[in-house]
């Protein structure tokens, strides 16, 4: 297969609301493994077929650890130098992950459903009491996942003002300067290090406490790994779900037929969440590259050892796997989307995110049967220059 002479620029442009750039579809037809040029670090391969995406995510011949400290293709200037669970390969990755995996199993998360429900009920009581219009980002989408992850990790909820600010900057691509991004990460590290120090004085049973015990009594991770793990869990534990709550609500309020269907049959909420996970491109930029550690053939193209590969955002819209992939359909029989990834890095918080999204979206629709956007859909402000997409503000009335 021939590839174009001049690699396309990637990302294709600033993400527009929840639209998937049409270039993805075009590339899947003509060049499913295509050469792209990143703003920093050179050229990479971009994938658009579901099968190739699954292969790269699940195959250890593609490494995340190989990006650390290297000038790999990327969307932001800073070179990734902090080892974290997100950029470790097996067996190191498994050594860390299994330390906390038990706290995030489906079984454990189901025990939190009642707590999440109480929380959402209380938050929506406040929304009702204050009256329309309400900004769901501040009223529901942020407080729900932040409260839950704080309780799980053992992070004081009253510190949210600070860590939200750091987290927002830490996950920026172009919205802040590289210095601001680095400094935000350092603030998060200092903050978690403080909580770790407290646990050495008085031990706790929460996830941070579990990690401190694993370090101090079992020497199962380094101090740097411990702190960075805490940072990753705190940031990933709320940014993604908070933004998806806003994205999903926006999707539903701008697709009245699907909204009506869901209101008429609340039992569809879990399937609706899966379908919205599939169709909503959460990524706002290029995402995390993987590096081939040996030559691998993908859709007839040889990806050479050392080459960088981006999985892009198009796998979940591959018509070879999903009928009418651009349509929201709550009745898909086998919705094996890769919204949470696949393979060793499959999102540890997936059961938690699913539960929070089901409770959040389900309760919102039940409590406010006439919910609608308070501004025209194309005037809803979306965050820019970030790793994940989401509304800055989501004004609704009822």
């Amino acid at each position, binding site marked *: 297969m021939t590839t174009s002479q001049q690699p396309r620029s990637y990302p294709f442009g600033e993400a527009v609301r929840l639209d998937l750039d049409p270039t993805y579809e075009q590339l899947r037809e003509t060049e499913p493994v295509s050469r792209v040029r990143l703003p920093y670090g050179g050229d990479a391969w971009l994938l658009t077929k579901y099968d190739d995406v699954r292969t790269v995510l699940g195959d*250890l011949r593609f490494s995340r650890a190989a990006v650390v400290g290297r000038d790999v293709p990327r969307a932001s200037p800073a070179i990734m130098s902090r080892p974290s669970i997100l950029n470790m390969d097996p067996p190191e990755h498994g050594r860390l992950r299994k330390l906390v995996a038990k706290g995030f199993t489906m079984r454990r998360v189901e025990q939190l459903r009642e707590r999440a429900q109480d929380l959402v009920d209380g938050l929506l009581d406040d929304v009702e009491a204050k009256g329309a219009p309400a900004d769901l980002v501040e009223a529901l989408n942020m407080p729900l996942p932040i409260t839950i992850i704080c309780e799980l990790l053992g992070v004081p909820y009253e510190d949210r003002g600070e860590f939200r600010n750091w987290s927002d900057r830490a996950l920026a691509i172009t919205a802040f300067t590289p210095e601001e991004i680095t400094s935000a990460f350092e603030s998060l590290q200092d903050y978690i290090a403080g909580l770790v120090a407290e646990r050495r004085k008085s031990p706790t049973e929460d996830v941070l406490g579990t990690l401190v015990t694993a370090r101090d009594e079992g020497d199962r991770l380094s101090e740097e790994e411990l702190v960075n793990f805490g940072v990753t869990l705190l940031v990933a534990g709320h940014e993604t779900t908070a933004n998806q709550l806003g994205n999903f609500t926006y999707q539903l309020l701008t697709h009245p037929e699907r909204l009506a269907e869901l209101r008429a049959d609340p039992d569809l909420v879990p399937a609706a969440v899966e379908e919205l996970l599939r169709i909503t491109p959460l990524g706002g930029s290029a995402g995390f590259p993987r590096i081939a550690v040996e030559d691998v053939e993908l859709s007839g193209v040889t990806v050479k050892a050392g080459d960088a590969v981006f999985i892009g955002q198009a796998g979940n819209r591959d018509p070879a796997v999903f009928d009418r992939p651009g349509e929201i359909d709550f009745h898909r029989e*086998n919705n*094996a989307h890769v919204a949470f990834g696949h*393979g060793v890095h499959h999102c*540890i918080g*997936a*059961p938690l995110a699913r539960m929070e999204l089901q409770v959040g979206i389900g309760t919102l629709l039940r409590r406010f049967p006439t919910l609608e956007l308070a501004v025209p859909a194309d005037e809803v402000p979306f965050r820019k220059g970030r790793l994940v997409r989401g509304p800055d503000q989501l004004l609704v009335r009822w």
Partner: protein
Amino acid sequence: MSKWQVQVDREACIGTGMCASSAAAYFRLENGKSTAVQDFVEPDELVTDAAESCPMEAILVRDGDGVVIAPEP
């Protein structure tokens, strides 16, 4: 050392692919869900790690005496 028994509950499995990636010698995906490559294996931490990391707790590992060694309750 006697062999370990590996069982995958395919009803519980949601096909994250974690076990099949991290311990490919022991697990593979069949129709999107995990299955044990062999029912009895030589002891290997990769197998118990996979069981400990599964979000659905769908992997059960027993030692030669039939005692469950992963996942921990």
